[in-house]
């Protein structure tokens, strides 16, 4: 009834860069969550934009993990890419909201 996406082995260089982007976002998430944990055990807490940012990076990392399979599936269509792009959209929105709020405070502090 439905057409299944067929997996084909993609060029290695494509896989390398897809995995690199995933690892980059995963490392950023781990650093962020590590700082959050470190401040929590010292009873300090974190700012609201830091929490939004970390949640955004988590969504971004999940999207990039799913995106690793995109070149193999030749998937510029279908449920796989829709969910990947929607998760990426949520992640980027949260990162940019955190960034925008931080910028407001940063500009305010400068003057």
């Amino acid at each position, binding site marked *: 009834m439905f057409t299944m996406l067929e997996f084909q082995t993609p060029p290695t260089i494509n896989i390398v860069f897809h995995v690199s982007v995933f690892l980059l976002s995963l490392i*950023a998430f781990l650093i962020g969550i590590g700082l959050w944990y470190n401040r929590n055990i010292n009873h300090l807490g974190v700012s609201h934009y830091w929490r939004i940012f970390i949640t955004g990076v988590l969504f971004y990392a999940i999207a990039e993990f799913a995106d690793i399979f995109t070149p193999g599936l030749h998937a510029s269509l279908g449920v796989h*890419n829709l969910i990947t792009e929607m998760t990426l959209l949520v992640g980027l929105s949260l990162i940019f909201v955190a*960034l925008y709020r931080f910028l407001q405070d940063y500009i305010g502090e400068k003057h």
Partner: protein
Amino acid sequence: MEALLNPFFYADFLPRLFHTIGTSWGIRMVCMCSLANFFNLVLHLILGAILIWLMTKRKELQQDRFFILLLLGIGFSGVSKLLDWFANMRTATGTAVFWSNNLDLVVEVLQFIGIGIILYGIVTKLFYVHHARISNPTND
């Protein structure tokens, strides 16, 4: 688990109504991902525009490394999203599935550079601000 994951790998797992609506507009609705891509691109444009507006309004921000890094990162990431959107729109409006390994590679490289610069800028700046606040509690 397999039953749960299977729909994830179907190309056309959408209600017939969706397909019909798309066809009337000349769009293959199995590529609705191009819509999410479009909004990703718009997000980059909005934040890029805000940054440029701030930097033109306040000249001292043009010397601020944080703003330069952000603008550079958003530039790279934005171009990557533009190319990704172009590829998906080719599938959505064409008669066959568009796929190019080279274009996919360019998109990923630009995304890697762009998001790398953005994450570096944010993490170092926010971390710096946290430390500044710890050392001077009255600054809150």
